[in-house]
């Protein structure tokens, strides 16, 4: 899973992804009918092809087992994020101190940083709006909060699940 190379998509990565998409289809459709299974197999094959084109294995890996182990932290932060934004939206004086915060990250550009950006976009008060070679820019609801310290803690927590690869356009 952590193989890194520039030889293009490997058979192993394609098979793993196909099985993952097929399992997803199986959970969503829950049918053993031959016609449904055929459509599911075709859909999983198409999804595998698209994912190998858009996210080649060499651009980085996500360790889903490590990510799953972080799910209690993620769920708790999702709850805090929802409560935080609901409180600000419903308060008569609407306490907002919105602005941009730059964050220097150790994650190189590519799939690892993109996945980190996706995770942090669900966390309290932050939405990633830009990134360059040195770091990322977040839009924050309250720039008075210790945003960079929180993001650094999140990078330590989720970083082990993100294996960097080469940058991909």
């Amino acid at each position, binding site marked *: 899973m952590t193989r890194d190379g520039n030889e293009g998509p490997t058979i192993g990565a394609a098979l793993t992804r196909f099985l993952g998409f097929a399992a997803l289809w199986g959970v*969503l459709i829950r049918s053993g009918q031959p016609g449904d299974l055929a459509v599911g197999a075709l859909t999983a094959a198409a999804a595998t092809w698209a994912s190998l084109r858009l996210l080649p294995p060499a651009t980085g890996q996500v360790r889903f087992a490590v990510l799953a182990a972080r799910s209690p932290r993620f769920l708790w932060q999702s709850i805090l994020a929802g409560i935080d934004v609901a409180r600000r939206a419903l308060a008569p004086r609407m306490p907002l101190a919105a602005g941009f915060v730059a964050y220097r990250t150790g994650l190189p550009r590519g799939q690892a940083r993109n996945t980190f950006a996706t995770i942090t976009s669900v966390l309290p008060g932050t939405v990633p709006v830009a990134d360059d070679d040195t770091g990322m820019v977040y839009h924050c609801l309250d720039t008075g909060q210790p945003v960079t310290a929180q993001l650094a803690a999140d990078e330590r927590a989720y970083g082990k699940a993100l294996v960097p690869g080469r940058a991909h356009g």
Partner: protein
Amino acid sequence: MNLADLFTVAAVCAGAFFFLAGSVGLLRFPDALTRLHALTKADNLGLGLVVLGLLPRVDGVLGGLKLVVIWLLALLASAAASQLIARAVKRSEPGA
């Protein structure tokens, strides 16, 4: 009404509250970027609570798994879409 029914009613009502709060934020917040926070974060929690409330009513583990997967897919879609919109807004209004 048994305990499972009460749990369902409480969790789904809590979910509806966060959808309402997200919509209020969409209307009240001053610009596109702050509105993104309201929609993604409040709605994700709202949908999560609705799913949580429906879990005791499903037929078996696979039914529950399907609901959780739907929540995760909605979460992934809203996280990806909010980033794309945020980056587009930042590019078109650098000082926003």
